[in-house]
């Protein structure tokens, strides 16, 4: 697969700051892949998202070194408006994303399409489709500011996917959601991938990261420690040393391995707990 985004030796520091928040970051995001960026807080994940969606250098100035390519063209050659059509960004904090200029959820979700100049009848159709996809039809007449955190998080996701961007950059889409709501949001993201979108996700819930991602990028103190297929990365020593949460099943298997239990393979999904041990446990 061809990379849709390429970073080559990218370093960045925010204006008035002397610290490099990202240091010599090189990575490829393949078209149509589901890539998760993991790392502890302060490792530079949100800054990396800002670069991947072109917000750096278009909005945040500061010092930027290295090359950033989107579809083979240098990121700085795009207009911010063009990027808005190509890349959708779902904010970490849904309280920040809500526009504040619309009185109902329906209008809020339609807002992006209005700005893109989409014909009115198409807007109605697309908003309806997304409201039902994200299961917020019942909220359509509500004021976005009267919603709970979890409800706002769904509205925030809906108002981005309705614009149908090629790339979705999603920063912790489920932090305010209950477990079932979280699963549902991940199912929607998976559906977006099936429709050919490239997904770039920041998330701490490692069970879900392992379940859904093709690849992981591990960040630590502004540097990429490793990028690769999810299972390979989780099995690497580099990941182990990074002090990042493992998926629960992986943590348990690794603990048992340490205590002398042989493994067939390293499990990363709950369901693999039944087949990952060498010894037949006797339940056929």
């Amino acid at each position: 697969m061809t990379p849709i985004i390429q970073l080559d030796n990218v370093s960045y520091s925010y204006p008035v700051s002397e610290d490099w928040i990202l240091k010599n970051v090189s990575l490829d995001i393949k078209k149509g892949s589901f890539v998760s960026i993991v790392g502890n807080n302060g490792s530079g994940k949100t800054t990396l998202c800002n670069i991947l969606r072109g917000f750096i250098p278009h909005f945040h100035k500061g010092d930027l070194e290295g090359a950033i390519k989107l579809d083979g063209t240098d990121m700085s050659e795009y207009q911010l408006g063009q990027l808005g059509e190509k890349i959708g960004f779902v904010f970490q904090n849904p309280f920040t994303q809500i526009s504040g200029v619309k009185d109902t959820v329906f209008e809020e979700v339609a807002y992006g399409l209005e700005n893109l100049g989409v014909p009115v009848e198409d807007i109605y159709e697309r908003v309806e489709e997304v409201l039902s996809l994200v299961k917020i039809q019942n909220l359509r007449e509500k004021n976005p500011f009267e919603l709970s955190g979890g409800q706002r998080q769904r509205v925030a996701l809906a108002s981005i996917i309705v614009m149908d961007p090629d790339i979705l950059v999603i920063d912790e889409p489920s932090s305010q959601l209950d477990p079932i709501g979280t699963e549902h949001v991940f199912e929607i993201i998976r559906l977006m991938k099936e429709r050919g979108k490239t997904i770039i996700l920041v998330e701490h819930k490692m069970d879900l990261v392992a379940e859904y991602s093709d690849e992981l990028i591990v960040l630590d103190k502004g540097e990429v420690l490793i990028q690769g297929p999810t299972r390979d990365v989780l099995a690497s020593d580099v990941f182990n040393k990074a002090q990042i949460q493992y998926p629960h099943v992986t943590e348990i298997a690794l603990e048992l391995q340490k205590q002398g239990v042989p493994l067939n393979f390293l499990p990363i999904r709950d369901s693999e707990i039944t087949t990952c041990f060498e010894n037949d446990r006797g339940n056929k």
Partner: protein
Amino acid sequence: MTHLQLKDVSFTYPDGTSAVEHLSLDVPSGQRVAIIGQNGAGKTTAVKLMNGLLRPTSGDVLVGDWDTKTKTTAQISRKVGYVFQNPDDQIFHNEVMSEVRFGPKNMGFDEEKTEEITNWAMDLCGVSEYADENPYNMPYSTRKFVTIASVIAMDPDIIILDEPTAGQDKIGLALLSTLLSELEKLGKTVITITHDMEFVTEHFERIIVMANRRVIADDKAANIFYQHDILEESMLKPPAVARMASLLGLPNGILHKEELVDYLKQQLLLGGNV
């Protein structure tokens, strides 16, 4: 030491939406309680009733011997501190230290106590090194710790944390765990709303499950996460360990990682079937 009681409390928002119905709860001083349940179950409304941000439409909320209906929110906030779900609803200073100091200063503590408790709270919440930073330059998860520090610095007997686990990494969760034990040592009551079922089973003895505006269970973790009717009604997912145990067909009741590891080790190393 403050005993908290909710007696048949219902609350309806001005637009007629009922958010909490017939809620009765008794939280003795110094207890650690988790409130779990789906989005929209009424959790945040329930805790806002506890510190007087909302007054019951019917029923009584007693904070010690105070009926919240007869006191101002400012008075109640001396005894019950509420850390907002969204830190941005709470923070209004340009520096972490002045944000944390605001509460104790307004409590009328003398200078020495104000300094002391501000520093203590910042230390406990791991934000001392950012004392002069603007909270809005910090990640969401760290801002959350700034708001926790601001509330515990007021030294209330009862502390309510609304989704402190949201967006926290491994380090943040470990910090919360230390924070809970320190507050317990001081005899504080801590009531926590969270969606993190692993965090709940590791840190809370008493769990209150809310669904559809009501409390549907008030029990120990083992009695909740293996009860299908409760899980179904509240649409909760059991914690990872319980999910794995049931995939493996192990007996009910296993909830902690160590239990599962020990059990499997027995089975796999010491003779297959148990």
